[in-house]
């Protein structure tokens, strides 16, 4: 062999790191931290500069982190940085409502006291989570960040993958991970096709300040135009996610703040007292987007790059973090066995672990939405009876609570509170 091998008998073949991660939003840095915790060298690439991503003011977006997701964040040293900004979600109340009529008497009530693991989830604002992840990544030796650079090409060879950035710089690793969202990126460059469904619906997202305390209770109202969720934030603040038909949403979004609140107020009544906006308002067109494959040669996809789903149950980030925990575990185990971490053998294990879970979750939230967005009186009666039945049966209710807390399925070690 003509390239001199570095001792001890491993030719490094000019690898810049073990893994390149494209996308420095939430899943990307979380994966970088999990991989670095497992002893892997990581290069984290993002098209935007760090300051742009980190120092955005409170933009009104927040996440309902499942218990398993907070365990993962604990395991990678991020939770301690955001714990003080997190609001525990102690109860979830689900009600079938109809605008102007108030909620129907049938409802479901999930209380964390019914399961032993603690709160069902934690509400965390996007800005806090993003900053904590990026700062933890910066403080970690095994992670090198390349910011403000776009990947323009990726080429595979038998031993690795080379990414070419827009300044001509190249990054060669054993594995490249696409954490770059549902647009054209790592997956498309690897030849992975996607299937998309668009709903004629748009999510309206904002944060509100209210008079009365929320007591850690999350509410989900199902109404004909679409669901409305009230999720508790720290202090007397809540995050609102609400969906409307595309046309109505555009009209409501165009209103001024006072007009917007006028529309919002009657939809969930006055139990929180007077409300005002706390932060910017956003709209997101709703749709489902699934990659045909989660892996290709020397490439793996996580989060929205693999599956963008309807945000109905706030499961998008939780599903992404499950990908992160599973991929980190597959890679860590492969490395400890001496396997090639970017090999088809290793990547297939990740795909088989995650694909079924993701596709079924995406379809479940899809049908949940279709069921609850329906104003047909028969459908409405059936779902009211169904909700009352679930509420009356403690076993079934506990099952739903555990599902919401992310405690079902084949959990990665980091989501069971174990070291990677």
């Amino acid at each position, binding site marked *: *062999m003509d390239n001199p*091998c570095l*001792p*001890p*008998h*491993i*030719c*490094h*073949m000019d690898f810049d790191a073990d893994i390149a991660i494209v996308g420095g939003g939430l899943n990307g840095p979380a994966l970088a931290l999990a991989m670095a915790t*497992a*002893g892997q060298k990581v290069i984290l690439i993002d098209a935007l500069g760090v300051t742009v991503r980190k120092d955005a003011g409170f933009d009104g977006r927040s996440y309902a982190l499942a218990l398993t997701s907070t365990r993962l964040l604990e395991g990678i040293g991020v939770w301690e940085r955001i714990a003080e900004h997190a609001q525990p979600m102690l109860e979830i109340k689900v009600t079938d409502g109809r605008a102007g009529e108030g909620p129907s008497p049938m409802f479901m009530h999930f209380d964390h006291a019914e399961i032993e693991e603690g709160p069902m989830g934690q509400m965390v604002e996007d800005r806090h989570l993003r900053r904590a992840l990026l700062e933890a990544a910066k403080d970690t030796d095994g992670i090198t960040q390349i910011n403000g650079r776009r990947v323009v090409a990726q080429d595979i060879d*038998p*031993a690795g993958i080379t990414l070419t950035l827009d300044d001509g710089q190249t990054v060669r690793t054993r594995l490249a991970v696409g954490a770059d969202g549902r647009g054209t990126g790592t997956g498309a460059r690897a030849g992975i096709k996607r299937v998309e469904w668009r709903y004629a619906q748009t999510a309206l997202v904002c944060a509100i300040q209210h008079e009365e305390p929320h007591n850690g209770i999350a509410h989900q109202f199902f109404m004909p135009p679409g669901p409305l969720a009230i999720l508790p934030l720290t202090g007397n603040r809540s995050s609102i996610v609400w969906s409307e038909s595309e046309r109505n949403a555009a009209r409501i979004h165009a209103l001024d703040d006072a007009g917007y609140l006028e529309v919002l107020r009657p939809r969930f009544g006055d139990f929180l007292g007077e409300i005002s906006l706390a932060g910017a308002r956003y709209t997101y067109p709703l749709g489902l987007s699934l990659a045909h494959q989660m892996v290709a040669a020397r490439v793996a996809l996580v989060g929205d790059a693999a599956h963008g789903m309807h945000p109905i149950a706030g499961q998008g980030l939780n599903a992404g973090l499950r990908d992160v925990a599973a991929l980190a575990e597959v890679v860590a*185990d492969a490395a*400890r*066995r*001496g*396997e*090639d971490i970017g090999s*088809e*053998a290793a990547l*297939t*294990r990740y795909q088989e672990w995650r694909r079924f879970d993701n596709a079924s979750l995406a379809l479940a939230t899809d049908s949940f939405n279709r069921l609850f967005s329906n104003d047909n009186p028969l459908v409405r009666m059936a779902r009211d009876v169904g909700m009352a039945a679930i509420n009356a049966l403690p076993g079934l209710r506990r099952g739903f609570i555990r599902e919401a807390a992310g405690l079902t399925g084949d959990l990665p070690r980091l989501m069971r509170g174990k070291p990677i």
Partner: protein
Amino acid sequence: MQSETTTATAQSTVDPAEIAKFEAMAAEWWDLNGKFKPLHMLNPCRLDYITTQIAGEFDRDLKVPAPFAGLRILDIGCGGGLLAEPMARLGAEVVGADAAERNIPVAQIHAEQSGLEIDYRHTTAEAMAEDGEKFDVVLNMEVVEHVASPIDYLTACHDLLKSGGLHICSTINRNPKSYMMAIIGAEHVMRWLPKGTHEWSKFITPDELFDLLRQAGLDPVDRKGFVFNPVKWTWGLSDRDLSVNYVTASLRPAD
């Protein structure tokens, strides 16, 4: 000596058509769904056992890069390098031996593509023992059921070890279940292996293997079963179920 001649042969006198053929064969060895699918399915489980045993015996931490640096490991019956490459990646100095000559250039080509340096040789355990070669670890996986004289072969494995060295040996148990699973199941029903791969009478029970290891001068220290889970479609290790495939660890006592 032998390795230098083999390497030289592979690099200087093999014509390009031959190399293309070996590349195709290497691709075949490493095709997860190809001819060697059963080995690929078993491989993570075998590697879990091997790496844990080596790490335990030589006090290595598998969570750091190149944990096996400084160890000399022999893989007998190396085939396409399914075990030799992981050992090299973990930092060991690896010799891969195979009695089938055509496997050598195939394994060499794949190692080169993977950026690994492995000393592949067309030779046998007995010949290497005679040359006085010594190793910290001898991997003897799924070979003993194919040899003519297990005791002579295991004695050679003993001789190849340094004092205090580790010998890992896996094989197939001999009982009605192993006949059903390994011959009827794997060869005839699933077609995982070519018919005639195994001869049931050559299978060895764990107790017989422990006796043979002791006769060869080795101290058996551990045994575990490789168990196939048809629901998860993967292999796992079992403390109790050694009824079909199983693996043992033994040590060459300090002189």
